[in-house]
Structure formats: structure tokens, C-alpha cells
């Protein structure tokens, strides 16, 4: 979610990333570019660590418990790094972008709660033909967050 939203943020507000990389001065755009790249790297690392944790036991180490625990530990550690990178990124944003970000987070949490509970109830009573998975909710949250960021940027363009 953070990976995609960071990509979207760079696309919608910062323009061409290579031009941003060439920014010599330590101005706002330069700082945001650095923060965005840092967050992108952490998000990519977390995605990779999560994929390793999810598929490693089955395809790489034949469900050896020690290695699975190590993969879980790595995923959590990289996840903490991603959270800190995200916090730093938000603190670097200017006040309008922080407002857009906060609005998007509020909408995302609201949608997750409003949609998540009925979705799990429908799964519990077999109203839907499949079992609700956590990734369904993560996907919904990711899409909601991206659309909210895009809407916020469009609104204040």
C-alpha cells in the first residue's frame, strides 16, 4: 500500500523523479524526493520480506520452523523500518500535503472498518462463496488510500 501510494505521490506531485534527483539544493522538493525514495526502498524491502515469509516455507526451506521464525523476524524488523521511514516521510511533507495524507488515512481507516466487519460476517455465515482473507482487506485499504491521495491532490491542484 505504501509502495503504491509513494509511487502515486511522486507521479502526481513531484513530477519526473529523475529531475528531482538532479535537484542540487536542499530545498523542499529535494528533501521530499529523498524521503520518497527512502520510503520506496523500505516498502520494496518489506514486500520482499513478506513474500519470503509467505512463500519461503513452502518453496525454499520445506517448512523448517527455525527458518520460518527467522523470516517472520526479518519481516517484522523490516516492517518497523518501513513504519519509521513513513513517519519521517510524513513529517517532511508540507502542511497541505500532510492534510491530504491525513484525510486519506482517515478515509482508509473508515472504509476498512465499515467494509471489513460486514465482509467477515458474510464469510462467517457463508453469504459469499469464498473465505474472507486479510489480503482482501489490505487490497481494499491500499486502493482506498491511493484514490484518496489522488483525490486530495486533484482537489488542491
Amino acid at each position, binding site marked *: 500500500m505504501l509502495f503504491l501510494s509513494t509511487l502515486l505521490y511522486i507521479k502526481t*506531485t513531484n513530477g519526473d523523479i529523475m529531475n528531482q534527483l538532479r535537484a542540487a*539544493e536542499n*530545498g*523542499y*522538493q529535494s528533501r*521530499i524526493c529523498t524521503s520518497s525514495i527512502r520510503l520506496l526502498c523500505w516498502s520494496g524491502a518489506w514486500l520482499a520480506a513478506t513474500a519470503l515469509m509467505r512463500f519461503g516455507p513452502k518453496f525454499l526451506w520445506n517448512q523448517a520452523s527455525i527458518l520460518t521464525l527467522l523470516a517472520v523476524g526479518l519481516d517484522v524488523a523490516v516492517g518497523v523500518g518501513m513504519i519509521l521511514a513513513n513517519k519521517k516521510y510524513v513529517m517532511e511533507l*508540507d*502542511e*497541505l*500535503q500532510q*492534510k491530504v495524507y491525513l484525510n486519506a488515512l482517515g478515509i482508509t481507516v473508515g472504509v476498512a472498518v465499515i467494509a471489513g466487519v460486514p465482509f467477515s460476517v458474510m464469510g462467517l455465515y457463508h453469504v459469499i462463496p469464498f473465505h474472507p482473507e486479510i489480503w482482501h482487506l489490505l487490497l481494499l485499504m491500499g486502493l482506498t488510500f491511493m484514490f484518496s491521495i489522488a483525490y486530495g*491532490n486533484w*482537489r*488542491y*491542484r
Partner: protein
Amino acid sequence: MKNRLKVLRAERNWTQAELAEALDVSRQTINAIETGKFDPSLPLAFRAARLFGLRIEEIFHDEDGRTPATEIK
């Protein structure tokens, strides 16, 4: 809240990007302030006032045109 940011910027032949750089914010923020879509925080208003060499109330004023100075009177 209304403001004279666009006029003051035009008087100095500055682009939105140049003003944004001087105030350490994004160009989008300058545009949103100029069009009245977003009200700046007090620290940003102070930075703008310092940059233009004016008082805050000479740049920003209430929707009905009243400034803190006129209200005191």
C-alpha cells in the same frame, strides 16, 4: 480567509515555484493558498510576511475584509 499572495508575487515577478522554494513548501501549496482553497498555518503566514517585508494582516485578511488591526480600532 483571503490573501494578497498572488498580487505580491506578481509585483515581484516571481513564479509559484520560486515562491514555494522561498517558503520551503510545494508549488501546490502556494497555488492552493492563492486560490483560497487552503489556509496556511501561522508559522507559514509569518514566513510569508517576513519574505515580503509586510505584516501578516497586510497579506491575509478575513473573508469580510476585516483584519485584526481594524477590529482593534
